[in-house]
Protein backbone atom coordinates (compact mmCIF):
# COMPACT_ATOMS: atom_id res chain seq x y z
CA UNK A 1 0.00 0.00 0.00
CA UNK A 2 1.18 3.50 -0.72
CA UNK A 3 -0.27 6.96 -1.26
CA UNK A 4 -2.27 7.18 -4.49
CA UNK A 5 -0.40 10.39 -5.28
CA UNK A 6 2.91 8.54 -4.99
CA UNK A 7 1.76 5.73 -7.30
CA UNK A 8 0.65 8.34 -9.85
CA UNK A 9 3.94 10.20 -9.49
CA UNK A 10 5.93 7.03 -10.23
CA UNK A 11 3.70 6.02 -13.12
CA UNK A 12 4.11 9.39 -14.81
CA UNK A 13 7.78 9.76 -13.99
CA UNK A 14 8.52 6.65 -16.03
CA UNK A 15 6.05 7.55 -18.76
CA UNK A 16 7.85 10.86 -19.19
CA UNK A 17 11.29 9.24 -19.27
CA UNK A 18 10.16 6.63 -21.77
CA UNK A 19 8.62 9.32 -23.96
CA UNK A 20 11.81 11.34 -23.80
CA UNK A 21 13.78 8.39 -25.12
CA UNK A 22 11.21 7.65 -27.81
CA UNK A 23 11.34 11.23 -29.05
CA UNK A 24 15.11 10.94 -29.40
CA UNK A 25 14.70 7.73 -31.42
CA UNK A 26 12.12 9.31 -33.70
CA UNK A 27 14.46 12.19 -34.39
CA UNK A 28 17.33 9.81 -35.06
CA UNK A 29 15.25 7.96 -37.62
CA UNK A 30 14.12 11.24 -39.20
CA UNK A 31 17.66 12.52 -39.37
CA UNK A 32 18.77 9.37 -41.09
CA UNK A 33 16.20 9.82 -43.82
CA UNK A 34 17.23 13.42 -44.24
CA UNK A 35 20.88 12.42 -44.57
CA UNK A 36 20.31 9.60 -47.04
CA UNK A 37 17.90 11.37 -49.36
CA UNK A 38 19.09 13.70 -52.08
CA UNK A 39 16.29 16.18 -51.48
CA UNK A 40 14.95 16.79 -48.04
CA UNK A 41 11.49 15.43 -47.49
CA UNK A 42 9.46 17.66 -45.22
CA UNK A 43 6.83 14.93 -45.17
CA UNK A 44 9.17 12.89 -43.03
CA UNK A 45 9.46 15.66 -40.45
CA UNK A 46 5.73 16.14 -40.52
CA UNK A 47 5.20 12.49 -39.65
CA UNK A 48 7.73 12.76 -36.82
CA UNK A 49 5.73 15.60 -35.25
CA UNK A 50 2.48 13.76 -35.91
CA UNK A 51 3.78 10.70 -34.05
CA UNK A 52 4.49 12.78 -30.95
CA UNK A 53 0.93 14.10 -31.04
CA UNK A 54 2.00 17.75 -31.12
CA UNK A 55 0.84 18.67 -34.64
CA UNK A 56 -1.59 21.40 -33.56
CA UNK A 57 0.92 23.22 -31.42
CA UNK A 58 3.60 22.96 -34.09
CA UNK A 59 1.35 24.38 -36.78
CA UNK A 60 0.38 27.28 -34.53
CA UNK A 61 4.03 28.19 -34.28
CA UNK A 62 5.36 27.30 -37.74
CA UNK A 63 4.21 27.56 -41.35
CA UNK A 64 6.07 24.56 -42.63
CA UNK A 65 7.89 21.44 -41.50
CA UNK A 66 11.40 22.71 -41.68
CA UNK A 67 14.03 20.33 -40.32
CA UNK A 68 15.67 22.65 -37.82
CA UNK A 69 12.28 23.94 -36.63
CA UNK A 70 11.06 20.39 -35.95
CA UNK A 71 14.25 19.41 -34.19
CA UNK A 72 14.19 22.48 -31.96
CA UNK A 73 10.48 22.03 -31.29
CA UNK A 74 10.92 18.43 -30.16
CA UNK A 75 14.12 18.94 -28.21
CA UNK A 76 13.88 22.34 -26.58
CA UNK A 77 10.53 24.08 -26.89
CA UNK A 78 9.31 24.73 -23.34
CA UNK A 79 5.74 25.25 -24.58
CA UNK A 80 5.70 21.78 -26.09
CA UNK A 81 4.90 19.37 -23.24
CA UNK A 82 6.40 16.56 -25.34
CA UNK A 83 9.74 18.25 -25.93
CA UNK A 84 12.69 16.48 -24.34
CA UNK A 85 13.36 19.49 -22.16
CA UNK A 86 9.77 19.61 -20.86
CA UNK A 87 9.77 15.86 -20.33
CA UNK A 88 12.96 15.67 -18.27
CA UNK A 89 11.70 18.59 -16.21
CA UNK A 90 8.42 16.81 -15.60
CA UNK A 91 10.14 13.50 -14.86
CA UNK A 92 12.44 15.10 -12.32
CA UNK A 93 9.62 17.01 -10.66
CA UNK A 94 7.74 13.75 -10.27
CA UNK A 95 10.87 12.05 -8.97
CA UNK A 96 11.24 14.79 -6.36
CA UNK A 97 7.68 14.37 -5.19
CA UNK A 98 8.18 10.59 -4.81
CA UNK A 99 11.78 10.89 -3.64
CA UNK A 100 11.28 8.69 -0.57
CA UNK A 101 9.91 5.85 -2.73
CA UNK A 102 13.07 5.77 -4.87
CA UNK A 103 16.50 4.40 -4.15
CA UNK A 104 19.30 6.88 -4.01
CA UNK A 105 20.69 5.52 -7.29
CA UNK A 106 17.42 6.04 -9.16
CA UNK A 107 17.08 9.56 -7.80
CA UNK A 108 20.66 10.45 -8.64
CA UNK A 109 20.39 9.03 -12.15
CA UNK A 110 17.23 11.07 -12.69
CA UNK A 111 18.80 14.20 -11.31
CA UNK A 112 21.94 13.70 -13.42
CA UNK A 113 19.76 13.13 -16.48
CA UNK A 114 18.03 16.43 -15.82
CA UNK A 115 21.24 18.36 -15.17
CA UNK A 116 23.07 16.96 -18.20
CA UNK A 117 20.19 17.42 -20.63
CA UNK A 118 19.31 20.88 -19.39
CA UNK A 119 22.89 21.97 -19.96
CA UNK A 120 23.02 20.27 -23.37
CA UNK A 121 19.71 21.73 -24.48
CA UNK A 122 20.29 25.23 -23.13
CA UNK A 123 21.15 26.36 -26.68
CA UNK A 124 19.94 25.27 -30.11
CA UNK A 125 21.61 22.02 -31.16
CA UNK A 126 23.72 22.28 -34.30
CA UNK A 127 23.39 19.65 -37.03
CA UNK A 128 26.88 18.50 -36.27
CA UNK A 129 26.12 17.91 -32.60
CA UNK A 130 22.68 16.41 -33.09
CA UNK A 131 23.66 12.71 -33.30
CA UNK A 132 25.74 13.07 -30.15
CA UNK A 133 22.92 14.84 -28.31
CA UNK A 134 20.35 12.23 -29.33
CA UNK A 135 22.70 9.51 -28.12
CA UNK A 136 23.08 11.36 -24.84
CA UNK A 137 19.30 11.52 -24.34
CA UNK A 138 18.98 7.78 -24.88
CA UNK A 139 21.93 7.06 -22.61
CA UNK A 140 20.71 9.26 -19.75
CA UNK A 141 17.26 7.70 -19.71
CA UNK A 142 18.78 4.22 -19.99
CA UNK A 143 20.81 4.99 -16.85
CA UNK A 144 17.65 5.76 -14.90
CA UNK A 145 16.04 2.56 -16.16
CA UNK A 146 19.16 0.60 -15.28
CA UNK A 147 19.18 2.00 -11.75
CA UNK A 148 15.50 1.11 -11.42
CA UNK A 149 16.10 -2.49 -12.50
CA UNK A 150 19.30 -2.85 -10.56
CA UNK A 151 18.39 -1.36 -7.20
CA UNK A 152 14.65 -1.26 -6.58
CA UNK A 153 12.76 -3.70 -4.44
CA UNK A 154 10.19 -5.63 -6.49
CA UNK A 155 7.15 -4.24 -4.72
CA UNK A 156 4.24 -2.05 -5.81
CA UNK A 157 6.57 0.94 -6.19
CA UNK A 158 8.45 -0.95 -8.88
CA UNK A 159 5.23 -2.24 -10.47
CA UNK A 160 3.71 1.23 -10.90
CA UNK A 161 6.99 2.44 -12.41
CA UNK A 162 6.99 -0.45 -14.86
CA UNK A 163 3.33 0.12 -15.74
CA UNK A 164 4.08 3.72 -16.70
CA UNK A 165 7.03 2.66 -18.82
CA UNK A 166 5.20 -0.06 -20.75
CA UNK A 167 1.94 1.85 -21.23
CA UNK A 168 3.98 4.64 -22.79
CA UNK A 169 6.05 2.27 -24.89
CA UNK A 170 3.02 0.40 -26.24
CA UNK A 171 1.38 3.70 -27.12
CA UNK A 172 4.55 4.85 -28.88
CA UNK A 173 4.95 1.70 -30.98
CA UNK A 174 1.29 1.80 -32.00
CA UNK A 175 1.61 5.47 -33.00
CA UNK A 176 4.74 4.94 -35.08
CA UNK A 177 3.09 2.10 -36.96
CA UNK A 178 -0.11 4.06 -37.42
CA UNK A 179 1.63 7.14 -38.77
CA UNK A 180 3.42 4.91 -41.28
CA UNK A 181 0.54 2.56 -41.91
CA UNK A 182 -0.08 3.93 -45.41
CA UNK A 183 3.32 2.53 -46.35
CA UNK A 184 2.59 -0.83 -44.80
CA UNK A 185 -0.97 -1.16 -45.90
CA UNK A 186 -1.23 -1.38 -49.71
CA UNK A 187 1.61 -3.77 -50.28
CA UNK A 188 0.66 -6.70 -48.11
CA UNK A 189 -0.50 -8.74 -51.06
CA UNK A 190 1.71 -7.07 -53.63
CA UNK A 191 4.67 -9.26 -52.86
CA UNK A 192 7.87 -8.06 -54.38
CA UNK A 193 6.74 -4.53 -55.15
CA UNK A 194 9.59 -2.08 -54.89
CA UNK A 195 8.84 0.13 -51.94
CA UNK A 196 11.08 2.60 -50.35
CA UNK A 197 13.28 0.42 -48.15
CA UNK A 198 14.46 3.51 -46.35
CA UNK A 199 10.92 3.95 -45.06
CA UNK A 200 10.90 0.41 -43.72
CA UNK A 201 14.14 1.04 -42.02
CA UNK A 202 12.75 4.21 -40.48
CA UNK A 203 10.00 2.29 -38.79
CA UNK A 204 12.43 -0.25 -37.43
CA UNK A 205 14.99 2.33 -36.41
CA UNK A 206 12.48 4.48 -34.58
CA UNK A 207 11.97 1.56 -32.20
CA UNK A 208 15.63 0.45 -32.31
CA UNK A 209 14.59 -2.82 -33.93
CA UNK A 210 16.66 -2.92 -37.11
CA UNK A 211 19.27 -5.33 -35.79
CA UNK A 212 16.77 -7.56 -33.97
CA UNK A 213 14.68 -7.68 -37.12
CA UNK A 214 17.66 -8.79 -39.16
CA UNK A 215 18.26 -11.68 -36.76
CA UNK A 216 14.76 -12.90 -37.37
CA UNK A 217 14.23 -12.00 -41.02
CA UNK A 218 17.48 -12.18 -42.96
CA UNK A 219 15.85 -11.70 -46.38
CA UNK A 220 14.14 -8.71 -47.93
CA UNK A 221 12.11 -6.45 -45.67
CA UNK A 222 8.39 -6.98 -46.22
CA UNK A 223 5.47 -5.09 -44.69
CA UNK A 224 4.09 -8.32 -43.35
CA UNK A 225 7.25 -9.08 -41.42
CA UNK A 226 7.70 -5.57 -40.06
CA UNK A 227 4.14 -5.35 -38.79
CA UNK A 228 4.21 -8.90 -37.41
CA UNK A 229 7.47 -8.20 -35.63
CA UNK A 230 6.35 -4.94 -34.02
CA UNK A 231 2.84 -6.06 -33.14
CA UNK A 232 2.92 -9.76 -32.43
CA UNK A 233 6.44 -10.89 -31.54
CA UNK A 234 6.51 -11.46 -27.76
CA UNK A 235 10.32 -11.42 -27.71
CA UNK A 236 10.76 -7.95 -29.20
CA UNK A 237 10.97 -5.52 -26.23
CA UNK A 238 9.10 -2.73 -28.00
CA UNK A 239 6.39 -4.82 -29.66
CA UNK A 240 2.78 -4.46 -28.56
CA UNK A 241 2.77 -8.13 -27.53
CA UNK A 242 5.76 -7.65 -25.24
CA UNK A 243 4.48 -4.40 -23.70
CA UNK A 244 1.03 -5.89 -23.13
CA UNK A 245 2.45 -8.94 -21.38
CA UNK A 246 4.59 -6.72 -19.13
CA UNK A 247 1.56 -4.60 -18.31
CA UNK A 248 -0.41 -7.73 -17.46
CA UNK A 249 2.43 -9.13 -15.32
CA UNK A 250 2.86 -5.95 -13.31
CA UNK A 251 -0.88 -5.63 -12.77
CA UNK A 252 -0.89 -9.26 -11.59
CA UNK A 253 1.92 -8.59 -9.12
CA UNK A 254 -0.09 -5.69 -7.71
CA UNK A 255 -3.23 -7.84 -7.51
CA UNK A 256 -1.21 -10.47 -5.66
CA UNK A 257 0.25 -7.96 -3.17
CA UNK A 258 -3.09 -6.27 -2.52
CA UNK A 259 -5.09 -9.49 -2.76
CA UNK A 260 -7.56 -7.61 -4.90
CA UNK A 261 -8.38 -7.47 -8.62
CA UNK A 262 -9.59 -4.26 -10.20
CA UNK A 263 -11.35 -3.29 -13.43
CA UNK A 264 -7.99 -2.44 -14.99
CA UNK A 265 -7.18 -6.16 -14.94
CA UNK A 266 -10.12 -6.76 -17.26
CA UNK A 267 -9.09 -3.90 -19.55
CA UNK A 268 -5.58 -5.38 -19.76
CA UNK A 269 -7.03 -8.84 -20.48
CA UNK A 270 -9.03 -7.35 -23.33
CA UNK A 271 -5.89 -5.70 -24.71
CA UNK A 272 -4.07 -9.05 -24.67
CA UNK A 273 -7.12 -10.67 -26.27
CA UNK A 274 -6.85 -8.25 -29.19
CA UNK A 275 -3.58 -9.89 -30.31
CA UNK A 276 -3.61 -13.34 -28.75
CA UNK A 277 -3.64 -16.07 -31.36
CA UNK A 278 -3.98 -13.61 -34.22
CA UNK A 279 -2.04 -13.78 -37.47
CA UNK A 280 -0.80 -10.59 -39.06
CA UNK A 281 -2.74 -11.35 -42.27
CA UNK A 282 -5.87 -11.39 -40.21
CA UNK A 283 -5.06 -7.94 -38.80
CA UNK A 284 -4.28 -6.55 -42.28
CA UNK A 285 -7.52 -7.98 -43.62
CA UNK A 286 -9.67 -6.29 -41.03
CA UNK A 287 -7.66 -3.07 -41.39
CA UNK A 288 -4.32 -2.21 -39.84
CA UNK A 289 -5.28 1.42 -39.30
CA UNK A 290 -8.48 0.41 -37.47
CA UNK A 291 -6.51 -2.10 -35.40
CA UNK A 292 -3.92 0.49 -34.39
CA UNK A 293 -6.46 3.26 -33.70
CA UNK A 294 -8.33 0.91 -31.45
CA UNK A 295 -5.08 -0.21 -29.74
CA UNK A 296 -4.14 3.43 -29.03
CA UNK A 297 -7.64 4.04 -27.65
CA UNK A 298 -7.58 0.94 -25.45
CA UNK A 299 -4.12 1.74 -24.11
CA UNK A 300 -5.43 5.19 -23.11
CA UNK A 301 -8.48 3.56 -21.51
CA UNK A 302 -6.23 1.21 -19.58
CA UNK A 303 -4.01 4.07 -18.34
CA UNK A 304 -7.12 5.94 -17.23
CA UNK A 305 -8.55 2.87 -15.48
CA UNK A 306 -5.26 2.27 -13.63
CA UNK A 307 -5.41 5.89 -12.50
CA UNK A 308 -8.93 5.38 -11.15
CA UNK A 309 -8.36 1.93 -9.60
CA UNK A 310 -5.29 2.96 -7.67
CA UNK A 311 -6.51 6.45 -6.85
CA UNK A 312 -3.72 8.48 -8.42
CA UNK A 313 -5.69 11.72 -8.16
CA UNK A 314 -8.99 11.18 -6.36
Amino acid sequence: MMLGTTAGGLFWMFRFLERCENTARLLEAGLRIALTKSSESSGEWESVVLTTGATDLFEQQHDRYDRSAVIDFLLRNPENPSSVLSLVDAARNNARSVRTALTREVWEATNDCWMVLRATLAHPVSDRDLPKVLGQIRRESALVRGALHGTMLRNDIYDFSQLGMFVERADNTARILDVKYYILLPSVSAVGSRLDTIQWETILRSVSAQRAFRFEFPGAITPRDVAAFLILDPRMPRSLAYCYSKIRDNLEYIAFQYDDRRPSHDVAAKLIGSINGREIENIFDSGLHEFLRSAIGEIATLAHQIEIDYRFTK
Partner: protein
Amino acid sequence: MGAPLVHGNDLRVVDGRLAMRTTEDYQPIDVLYRRVDDDFIDPLNFNPTSQLGIPGVFDVYRAGNLTIANAPGTGIADDKAIYTYMPEIVEFYTGERPILKNVPTWRCADPESLSYVVDHLDELVVKEVHGSGGYGMLVGPAASSKEREDFAAKLCSAPANYIAQPTLALSSVPILTESGLAPRHVDLRPFVLVSPDSIHITPGGLTRVALEEGSLVVNSSQGGGTKDTWVLEDY
Protein backbone atom coordinates in the same frame (compact mmCIF):
# COMPACT_ATOMS: atom_id res chain seq x y z
CA MET B 1 10.19 7.74 10.98
CA GLY B 2 8.26 5.98 8.22
CA ALA B 3 5.32 8.38 8.38
CA PRO B 4 3.77 9.25 5.01
CA LEU B 5 4.08 12.90 3.97
CA VAL B 6 0.69 14.05 2.73
CA HIS B 7 -1.00 17.14 1.33
CA GLY B 8 -4.56 18.25 1.97
CA ASN B 9 -5.68 16.62 -1.28
CA ASP B 10 -4.39 13.22 -0.11
CA LEU B 11 -6.87 13.30 2.78
CA ARG B 12 -10.62 13.22 3.07
CA VAL B 13 -13.26 12.67 5.73
CA VAL B 14 -14.84 9.23 5.26
CA ASP B 15 -17.53 7.94 7.66
CA GLY B 16 -16.54 10.30 10.44
CA ARG B 17 -12.84 9.40 10.24
CA LEU B 18 -9.96 11.14 8.56
CA ALA B 19 -8.75 8.91 5.73
CA MET B 20 -5.70 8.89 3.47
CA ARG B 21 -6.00 8.19 -0.27
CA THR B 22 -3.91 5.09 -0.97
CA THR B 23 -3.57 2.58 -3.79
CA GLU B 24 -5.84 0.39 -1.64
CA ASP B 25 -8.61 2.97 -1.25
CA TYR B 26 -9.11 5.40 1.59
CA GLN B 27 -7.50 4.16 4.81
CA PRO B 28 -8.46 5.75 8.16
CA ILE B 29 -5.69 7.44 10.11
CA ASP B 30 -5.46 8.17 13.83
CA VAL B 31 -2.79 10.83 14.18
CA LEU B 32 -2.00 13.80 11.99
CA TYR B 33 1.12 15.87 12.52
CA ARG B 34 0.13 18.99 10.74
CA ARG B 35 2.20 21.81 9.34
CA VAL B 36 -0.64 23.99 8.06
CA ASP B 37 -1.83 27.09 9.95
CA ASP B 38 -5.02 26.85 12.05
CA ASP B 39 -6.95 29.11 9.71
CA PHE B 40 -6.25 26.88 6.74
CA ILE B 41 -6.80 23.36 8.05
CA ASP B 42 -10.53 23.17 7.33
CA PRO B 43 -12.32 25.34 4.77
CA LEU B 44 -15.73 24.28 6.14
CA ASN B 45 -14.93 25.45 9.67
CA PHE B 46 -12.35 28.16 9.16
CA ASN B 47 -11.04 30.08 6.15
CA PRO B 48 -13.44 29.01 3.35
CA THR B 49 -10.93 29.88 0.61
CA SER B 50 -8.28 27.47 1.89
CA GLN B 51 -7.02 25.02 -0.72
CA LEU B 52 -4.54 23.51 1.74
CA GLY B 53 -6.91 21.99 4.24
CA ILE B 54 -9.33 19.09 4.50
CA PRO B 55 -13.05 19.90 4.47
CA GLY B 56 -14.63 18.70 7.72
CA VAL B 57 -11.42 17.62 9.49
CA PHE B 58 -12.25 19.82 12.45
CA ASP B 59 -15.54 17.98 13.01
CA VAL B 60 -13.62 14.68 13.10
CA TYR B 61 -11.23 16.22 15.60
CA ARG B 62 -14.05 17.56 17.77
CA ALA B 63 -15.75 14.16 17.75
CA GLY B 64 -12.56 12.68 19.21
CA ASN B 65 -11.79 10.51 16.17
CA LEU B 66 -8.46 12.09 15.39
CA THR B 67 -5.43 13.35 17.27
CA ILE B 68 -3.82 16.36 15.71
CA ALA B 69 -0.26 16.95 16.84
CA ASN B 70 0.19 20.68 16.99
CA ALA B 71 -3.45 20.70 18.08
CA PRO B 72 -5.51 23.64 16.90
CA GLY B 73 -4.80 26.57 19.19
CA THR B 74 -1.29 25.52 20.14
CA GLY B 75 -0.09 28.42 18.03
CA ILE B 76 -0.19 30.35 21.28
CA ALA B 77 3.12 28.70 22.13
CA ASP B 78 4.57 30.47 19.09
CA ASP B 79 3.82 33.78 20.76
CA LYS B 80 7.28 34.86 21.80
CA ALA B 81 6.00 36.57 24.94
CA ILE B 82 4.92 33.13 26.25
CA TYR B 83 8.57 32.19 26.32
CA THR B 84 9.20 34.63 29.16
CA TYR B 85 6.86 32.54 31.34
CA MET B 86 8.63 29.24 30.65
CA PRO B 87 10.33 28.90 34.08
CA GLU B 88 6.95 29.38 35.82
CA ILE B 89 5.23 27.00 33.39
CA VAL B 90 7.85 24.30 33.98
CA GLU B 91 7.55 24.67 37.72
CA PHE B 92 3.76 24.65 37.63
CA TYR B 93 3.56 21.38 35.69
CA THR B 94 6.56 19.50 37.11
CA GLY B 95 6.97 20.98 40.54
CA GLU B 96 10.66 21.36 39.78
CA ARG B 97 12.87 24.22 38.77
CA PRO B 98 13.82 24.13 35.10
CA ILE B 99 17.22 22.60 34.32
CA LEU B 100 17.90 24.80 31.30
CA LYS B 101 17.94 28.51 31.98
CA ASN B 102 15.89 30.85 29.82
CA VAL B 103 17.65 33.27 27.53
CA PRO B 104 17.12 36.60 29.33
CA THR B 105 14.05 38.10 27.67
CA TRP B 106 12.43 41.51 28.09
CA ARG B 107 8.68 41.70 27.62
CA CYS B 108 8.19 45.17 26.17
CA ALA B 109 4.58 45.29 27.42
CA ASP B 110 6.20 45.90 30.81
CA PRO B 111 7.09 49.64 31.02
CA GLU B 112 10.35 49.07 32.88
CA SER B 113 11.49 46.49 30.36
CA LEU B 114 10.47 48.79 27.51
CA SER B 115 12.60 51.65 28.74
CA TYR B 116 15.55 49.28 29.22
CA VAL B 117 15.12 47.96 25.69
CA VAL B 118 14.87 51.42 24.16
CA ASP B 119 18.06 52.46 25.99
CA HIS B 120 19.96 49.34 24.90
CA LEU B 121 18.71 48.87 21.34
CA ASP B 122 22.29 48.69 20.06
CA GLU B 123 22.96 45.45 21.98
CA LEU B 124 19.62 43.67 21.74
CA VAL B 125 17.61 41.67 19.25
CA VAL B 126 13.99 42.83 19.21
CA LYS B 127 11.34 40.48 17.81
CA GLU B 128 7.64 40.65 17.13
CA VAL B 129 5.75 38.27 19.44
CA HIS B 130 3.74 36.89 16.49
CA GLY B 131 6.65 36.99 14.11
CA SER B 132 8.44 34.05 12.58
CA GLY B 133 10.81 33.41 9.77
CA GLY B 134 13.08 36.24 10.89
CA TYR B 135 10.66 38.94 9.74
CA GLY B 136 9.86 42.18 11.54
CA MET B 137 12.89 42.00 13.80
CA LEU B 138 15.77 44.28 14.60
CA VAL B 139 19.29 42.99 15.18
CA GLY B 140 20.55 45.96 17.16
CA PRO B 141 24.33 45.62 16.79
CA ALA B 142 24.04 45.14 13.03
CA ALA B 143 21.53 47.95 12.44
CA SER B 144 22.34 51.55 11.52
CA SER B 145 21.37 54.29 13.98
CA LYS B 146 18.63 55.36 11.58
CA GLU B 147 17.20 51.82 11.52
CA ARG B 148 17.32 51.74 15.32
CA GLU B 149 15.49 55.09 15.59
CA ASP B 150 12.79 53.96 13.19
CA PHE B 151 12.40 50.70 15.05
CA ALA B 152 12.21 52.47 18.43
CA ALA B 153 9.26 54.49 17.13
CA LYS B 154 7.41 51.32 16.07
CA LEU B 155 8.28 49.68 19.36
CA CYS B 156 6.97 52.52 21.50
CA SER B 157 3.71 52.78 19.58
CA ALA B 158 2.86 49.11 20.25
CA PRO B 159 5.19 47.77 22.94
CA ALA B 160 3.06 44.68 23.68
CA ASN B 161 3.93 43.39 20.21
CA TYR B 162 7.61 43.01 21.04
CA ILE B 163 10.12 41.15 23.14
CA ALA B 164 13.87 41.66 23.27
CA GLN B 165 16.81 39.38 23.95
CA PRO B 166 20.57 39.78 24.06
CA THR B 167 22.16 39.27 20.68
CA LEU B 168 23.47 35.72 20.64
CA ALA B 169 26.89 35.10 19.22
CA LEU B 170 26.09 32.49 16.58
CA SER B 171 28.85 30.15 15.62
CA SER B 172 30.21 30.34 12.10
CA VAL B 173 31.28 27.88 9.41
CA PRO B 174 33.03 28.29 6.09
CA ILE B 175 30.84 28.34 3.00
CA LEU B 176 31.70 28.56 -0.68
CA THR B 177 30.84 31.96 -2.12
CA GLU B 178 31.52 33.33 -5.58
CA SER B 179 34.72 34.90 -4.28
CA GLY B 180 35.86 31.79 -2.44
CA LEU B 181 35.54 30.41 1.08
CA ALA B 182 34.00 32.81 3.60
CA PRO B 183 32.61 32.52 7.15
CA ARG B 184 28.86 32.66 7.74
CA HIS B 185 26.72 32.31 10.85
CA VAL B 186 24.90 29.05 11.57
CA ASP B 187 22.50 27.59 14.06
CA LEU B 188 21.41 24.01 14.71
CA ARG B 189 17.88 22.76 15.10
CA PRO B 190 17.85 19.42 16.83
CA PHE B 191 14.79 17.17 16.51
CA VAL B 192 13.66 15.78 19.81
CA LEU B 193 10.92 13.19 20.22
CA VAL B 194 9.14 13.12 23.55
CA SER B 195 7.08 10.18 24.78
CA PRO B 196 5.69 9.59 28.26
CA ASP B 197 8.67 7.36 29.09
CA SER B 198 11.59 9.01 27.42
CA ILE B 199 13.10 11.78 25.43
CA HIS B 200 14.86 10.77 22.24
CA ILE B 201 17.18 13.09 20.37
CA THR B 202 17.25 11.98 16.74
CA PRO B 203 20.79 11.51 15.41
CA GLY B 204 20.80 14.49 13.08
CA GLY B 205 19.40 17.96 12.84
CA LEU B 206 18.91 20.92 10.62
CA THR B 207 21.91 23.21 10.29
CA ARG B 208 20.76 26.56 8.98
CA VAL B 209 23.23 29.07 7.58
CA ALA B 210 22.85 32.80 6.88
CA LEU B 211 24.13 33.39 3.35
CA GLU B 212 24.68 37.12 3.76
CA GLU B 213 27.90 38.31 5.27
CA GLY B 214 27.53 39.17 8.96
CA SER B 215 23.83 38.31 8.99
CA LEU B 216 22.31 36.41 11.90
CA VAL B 217 19.10 35.64 10.01
CA VAL B 218 19.32 31.98 9.04
CA ASN B 219 15.66 31.49 8.12
CA SER B 220 15.14 29.79 4.78
CA SER B 221 12.24 32.13 4.01
CA GLN B 222 14.77 34.95 3.97
CA GLY B 223 17.37 33.32 1.81
CA GLY B 224 19.08 31.23 4.47
CA GLY B 225 20.67 27.97 3.39
CA THR B 226 21.34 24.62 4.96
CA LYS B 227 24.51 22.67 5.61
CA ASP B 228 25.12 18.98 6.11
CA THR B 229 24.91 18.04 9.77
CA TRP B 230 27.53 15.60 11.03
CA VAL B 231 26.88 13.60 14.14
CA LEU B 232 30.02 12.15 15.69
CA GLU B 233 29.73 8.93 17.61
CA ASP B 234 31.81 8.31 20.73
CA TYR B 235 33.85 5.14 20.76
